[in-house]
């Protein structure tokens, strides 16, 4: 299963994407892996469980929070996930 699926389905409702892991270069996959760790850290901090175990509403709420985060680094992650979710949606 595409490891970014929980994130992408929370950003683009009904996202049915392709297997990004095969198509994206290794460097992009590596950064995606690191970005998932950041997301899970925030999920643990705010909801005491990893992102994939959150309810859809909690997932969306967390992403909205991160998209308005004071740190530009965190906001940029959400923009990047959104970009990948939209271009890979089908």
């Amino acid at each position, binding site marked *: 299963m595409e490891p970014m699926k929980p994130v992408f389905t*929370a*950003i*683009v*409702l009904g996202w049915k994407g*392709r297997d990004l892991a095969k*198509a*994206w*270069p290794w*460097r*992009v996959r590596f*950064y995606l892996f690191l970005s998932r760790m950041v997301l899970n850290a925030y999920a643990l901090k705010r909801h005491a469980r990893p992102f994939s175990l959150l309810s859809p509403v909690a*997932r*969306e709420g967390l*992403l*909205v929070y991160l*998209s*308005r985060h004071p*740190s*530009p*680094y965190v*906001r*940029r992650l*959400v*923009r*990047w996930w*959104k*970009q*990948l979710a*939209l*271009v*890979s*949606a*089908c």
Partner: protein
Amino acid sequence: MLATDGSKDVHESADFVIVGSGAAGATCARWLSAAGRSVLVIEEGGPARAARGEGYEASTRLYRNGTSAMTWGRDAMHILQGRCVGGSTVVAGAVMEMMPHDVWQEWVQTDPRWEQRLPWDDLMRAHERMDAELAVEKTPRELWGEGGAGLLRGLMGQATPTWRAAPGCQGSGRCFQGCPHGGKSSVDVTLLPRAEKEGARVIPWCRVERVEIADGVAVAVHGRFSAGGKLVARAKVAIILAASAPGTVALLHRSGVKNVGQGFQVHPAVAVAGLFPRPMSAGPEATHAMESFAFRDQGLKLESVRLPTSSLAQRVPGVGRQLDQRMQQLPFIGSWNVLLRAEARGRVRRGLLGSWIQYAPTDEDRRKLLKGIAILSEAMLLDEALEVWPGVHGAPETITRPKQAQDIAAMAPQAGAVPLWSAHLFCGVPVDDQFQACGIGKLVVADSSLFPSNLGVAPAATIMAVATLISDRWGAA
């Protein structure tokens, strides 16, 4: 193209070995092969095929790092570069505008040798030659679309149709995915096939790993095919680097050349989107139909942009249900860009995972970008937009009144407040009067890494004009 599957080692030689098949590399290949020289063009990506699956195919096949390349820093910006035969010309909007004369004068004032290296009259003649070669023309009225006509109205007439190398444009707005109709004069369908007719050979899927330099003279390039084979290409006359500003610097880093990568500049862009009461994507519209240089004294260029669905949706704020609601209105959403001739200088550095770009706009640059966003937001409201999404952190997500737009211009500049991207990259490699890099003999630079500064306009036309002059001189050598 060279008939090899790339699984075996290949040894080649030619008068000129060109690294990169984009605007600069293809232009050099075109004129050098026409002058009777043997030419080998090496390209890291594969043949460009127009993507059919919206953004996904284009992102993975045509762009470097699947459109995910970024600069490093709080103002991190997306770097969009083509990685295919034809380079960024395959995924660019086909805008062909020559560098302004005052920018050339700035170069000459900074270093008088530029007057001899690139005489203005020669540059203009080369520019006219390339315009004829690529059938450049002004965007016709029927391809202005709602976005282009709207920008003209919103800026109260202070905009003009762009000059584009797209004689067969059908206004599908899919330039960034590789034109599906073949209507754009990208170099993979114009200059490179003409060069191949004259005997040039193009080698795709081969990443050049280093340039072999012996006794201060470049003699060969060493590359590796994506299928695993190695390539050694020896140059009898010269090696021409045309791999884009960061790509050429990264190759020089890998080749052991020092003191390159400083002074790197970009031409950052920001998007403003808005919801209109009329359909914005009903008729045909060129990707960049209209542009405005009315605020050029402040370094700003404004342009209309027609985007495919997935790219346009990225400019709509929100995630989840909010994004879903706004996506229902996608046909009524329009988007314009503001580009800045930024003064900031960064650096291409060498790191453990390869070269990376360190870059941050100055506070003055950030202030000008906010001003540009405010101007576009006001123009959208003047063109009857129901709401505008400026995308500035700290400003309202949605604005509906001109006063709110003016407030954006008055905001304090803040790092990372606006999402930036850039496809125009400049500077980083010092050259001599023969365009040889860092005093290394027969190692010629022909791309925008040799430019002393940001042009403030789309650079393809200037890159091609400069590459034409370089080819003329080296072809006759």
